[in-house]
């Protein structure tokens, strides 16, 4: 890990980002925060429907918000990469970062399980239909894991071995 961090820190890209940190970091943080709002709003809406709330909304209609969540996740992935590439030593040994990655994996696998095994069947559900238990579990896991990603992401600056100023 240390070898990787040391190599990454000295790449041209990392040096370029470090050089432009004064505007690049606030810009990417702002986009990262806007992205998390869109992700929570759009994915949260679908998750609540999976949990059986807002039954007047057909599941396939709620599904039309999911591309917004995916786009937001993509923005946050790119801006997150900028953080990682420019300051790898802040993240490599950060407990909160690894919990964030863990819950990102949980959220991602959970979403893939829905898409692969349940979407075809569930998206044909009529409006006002309750959702089966499997859908409620997937919705609950999704909601909980996205908030866990947010929680551990926000705690990253406070669990850096030597604290940094970015708050």
């Amino acid at each position, binding site marked *: 890990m240390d070898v990787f961090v040391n190599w990454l820190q000295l790449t041209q890209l990392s040096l370029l980002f470090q050089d432009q940190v004064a505007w690049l970091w*606030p810009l990417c*943080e*702002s986009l990262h*925060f*806007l992205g*998390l*709002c*869109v*992700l*929570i*709003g*759009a994915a*949260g*809406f679908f998750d609540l429907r999976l949990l059986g709330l*807002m*039954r*007047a*909304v*057909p599941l396939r*209609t*709620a599904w*039309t*918000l999911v591309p*917004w969540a995916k786009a937001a996740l993509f923005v946050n992935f790119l801006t997150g990469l900028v953080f990682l590439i420019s300051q790898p030593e802040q993240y490599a040994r950060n407990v909160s970062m690894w919990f964030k990655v863990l819950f990102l994996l949980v959220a991602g696998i959970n979403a893939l399980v829905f898409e692969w095994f349940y979407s075809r069947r569930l998206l044909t559900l009529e409006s006002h239909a309750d959702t089966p238990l499997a859908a409620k579990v997937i919705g609950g896991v999704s909601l909980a894991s996205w*908030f866990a990603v*947010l*929680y551990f992401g*926000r*705690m990253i*600056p*406070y*669990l850096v071995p030597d604290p940094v100023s*970015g*708050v």
Partner: protein
Amino acid sequence: MPDFPMEFLTRLQDSALAQWVGGAETLLAYPTILTLHTVGLSIVVGTCLVIDLRVLGVARQAPLSALRRAPLLIWSAFLVNAVTGVLLFLPSAEQKAFQTIFYVKLACIAVALFAYARIWTLVFRDAGTLAAPIPREARTFAVVSLIFWTGATVAGRLMAYIL
């Protein structure tokens, strides 16, 4: 600069609560309060975003009445953010009270909340407005809402940079 606000701000900043928020050697103080503020932000802005998108014609097949409990979500998260916001203000009251970007953020929140209130009245108020076509004014306020929630979020983030 008159004495009164500075004296008041100094008293705020020296209060036991402010000292605890800013100085306690526990992740439960400033870091957790800040994280709750971010969770609240995501719920307030995320829910308003869904309402705005629906008003602008996304997910058109979703009946408007399905969003009738959204205010509960928005206002409870907003309450969390008002409380955590005050707590986060306290330890650096003397500095934040003179930070322009802080007032930009507050102004953006005020405009965004006004837009939300207008949308609610125009579209969601009662069975009549729910059944009627969405008025153009509501669509305008949905765009205003999106712009000013974006502004509030970015200004909040920039408070760490533009001191």
